[in-house]
């Protein structure tokens, strides 16, 4: 009997043979699948909980820092040189100054009969007592940064958090609450928001993990984004990204293991950014256009089954930026990227679709610099 006959006999013998399956096999599969499904539905919530926990921690550290005096930034040279200073050095003479004070004292008589008296405000229990504003500190040695008229009011009501490392470099603008109550929550600082026409360059490293079967992919990459600030925190960005996507998961066909794709992408994003002192949070959304996708390694054998481009993906991400100085910033951006189409056909051993969640970490260089804005 030759080899071919031997092979055929074995093939025919085993072709339709059915083996006994353990009685509890279905129960094992069902339980395992239920466990996997619970975990799959759980992890997005875990991510949300983690983000909320981080933000709560950050807010807690800002608001409950025992070393953080709640002093009015009367050392500002704006105040020293201002007409308001000449008229009266009491906080009650400046209506907007009520925003930043936490004094429980009754309002002092105003030198200006048209201005409304400062009503008593109650100090929140978690805040230390407010300083006596009737005796402002000596302002004669304060530097003069020559503020614009528009900046004056902001500086006059700014709350300093000098002990907190996050906010040493800049004051936080305290937005008024209705009724003249002090607002302890750090708010958007319009003096440090994006300025129309400002360009910046971000260089980043990317990592990511696909979100489910059949493509359990790991992504590593690097890229750059050129961003232009438009107005009111809005910006647009475009760049290039090179990524290496390793596939190790289940395919819809018998596929080789451990192959990878080399992708070159063009991200085109729009962002909305809120700046808090030297920290900012942003939402980015847009599309990623794949310029070229190449199967490498063991996938190279199936190159003819794949398209040279995987098409368009949707991108949604958050971006948290910490200023290092007036030009450089460090940022981290958790993101989710969903591919809109599967360019590979059913014949390809592996679907060429990558829905990936991950993290970008990088450095942003602001061409104009904050000081010049």
């Amino acid at each position: 009997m030759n080899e071919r006959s031997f092979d055929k006999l074995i093939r025919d013998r085993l072709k339709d043979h059915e083996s006994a399956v353990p009685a509890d096999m279905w129960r094992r599969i069902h339980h395992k699948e239920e466990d996997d499904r619970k975990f799959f539905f759980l992890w997005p919530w875990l991510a949300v909980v983690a983000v909320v926990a981080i933000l709560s921690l950050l807010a807690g550290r800002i608001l409950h820092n025992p070393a953080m005096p709640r002093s009015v930034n009367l050392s500002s040279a704006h105040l020293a040189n201002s007409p308001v200073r000449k008229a009266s050095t009491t906080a009650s003479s400046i209506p907007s100054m009520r925003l930043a004070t936490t004094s429980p004292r009754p309002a002092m008589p105003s030198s200006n009969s048209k201005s409304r008296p400062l009503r008593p405000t109650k100090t929140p229990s978690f805040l230390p007592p407010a300083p006596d504003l009737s005796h402002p500190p000596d302002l004669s040695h304060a530097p003069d940064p020559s503020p614009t008229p528009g900046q004056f009011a902001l500086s006059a009501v700014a709350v300093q958090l000098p002990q907190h490392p996050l906010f040493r470099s800049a004051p936080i603008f305290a937005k008024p609450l209705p009724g003249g109550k002090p607002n302890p929550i750090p708010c958007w600082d319009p003096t440090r928001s994006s300025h129309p026409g400002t360009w910046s360059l971000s260089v980043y490293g990317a990592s990511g993990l696909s979100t489910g079967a059949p493509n359990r992919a790991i992504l590593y990459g690097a890229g750059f984004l050129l961003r232009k600030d438009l107005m009111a925190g809005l910006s647009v960005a475009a760049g290039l990204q090179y990524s290496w996507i390793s596939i190790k998961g289940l395919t819809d066909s018998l596929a080789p293991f451990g192959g990878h794709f080399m992708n070159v992408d063009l991200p085109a994003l729009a962002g909305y950014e809120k700046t808090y002192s030297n920290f900012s949070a942003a939402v980015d959304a847009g599309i990623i256009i794949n310029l070229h996708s190449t199967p490498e390694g063991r996938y190279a054998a199936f190159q003819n089954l794949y398209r040279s481009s995987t098409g368009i993906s949707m991108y949604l991400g958050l971006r948290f930026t910490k200023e290092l100085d007036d030009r450089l910033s460090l940022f981290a951006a958790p993101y989710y990227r969903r591919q809109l189409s599967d360019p590979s056909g059913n014949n390809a051993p592996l679907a060429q679709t990558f829905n990936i969640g991950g993290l970008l970490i990088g450095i942003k260089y602001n061409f104009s610099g904050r000081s010049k804005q």
Partner: protein
Amino acid sequence: LTEHELIEGCRKKIAKCQRSLFEKYAGRMMTVCRRYSCDHKEAEDTLQESFINIFSSIDQYRFEGSFEGWIRKIVIHTAIRMIQRKKVHFTGLAGDVEDAPVIDADALDQLSAEELLSLISNLPDGYRTVFNLYVVEGYDHSEIAAMLDITPATSRSQLLKARLLLQTQIKAQKKIPENYE
């Protein structure tokens, strides 16, 4: 339920449909798992993992070609992945392969499928994997080489050794009368 309805039910994660699908194909897929596994415990683990993969990726089936063929590919893929986890080394032949014992077709007929499965399970992991992919699944050596990250020459030598060992084992089963040699 028709096969189409069964698949749609599985896509909706209906447990009753999943169970029906499992009961329909489990026996045949268990045979596939046993062919690629060294023992029954490993075959059971492979079958369990395979059906979890089938249920999680059933959305990928596009009603093109045989559904059983699609399931079988996933089972084979899962089995190979489990073998690769063991870090099997596929080594080429160091020297000439001696001739395999000559076996007549009637000799194979004396072996039951269960006995044949048992003999295949006794083959070393590398021999068994290549033998199954080539002889039973019908892949050629270049495809096997791509799947297992080996050279086509290594695939050929693994197959030759697998045949030799299997035929020797069949002979050793004493199912073969002397006049068949």
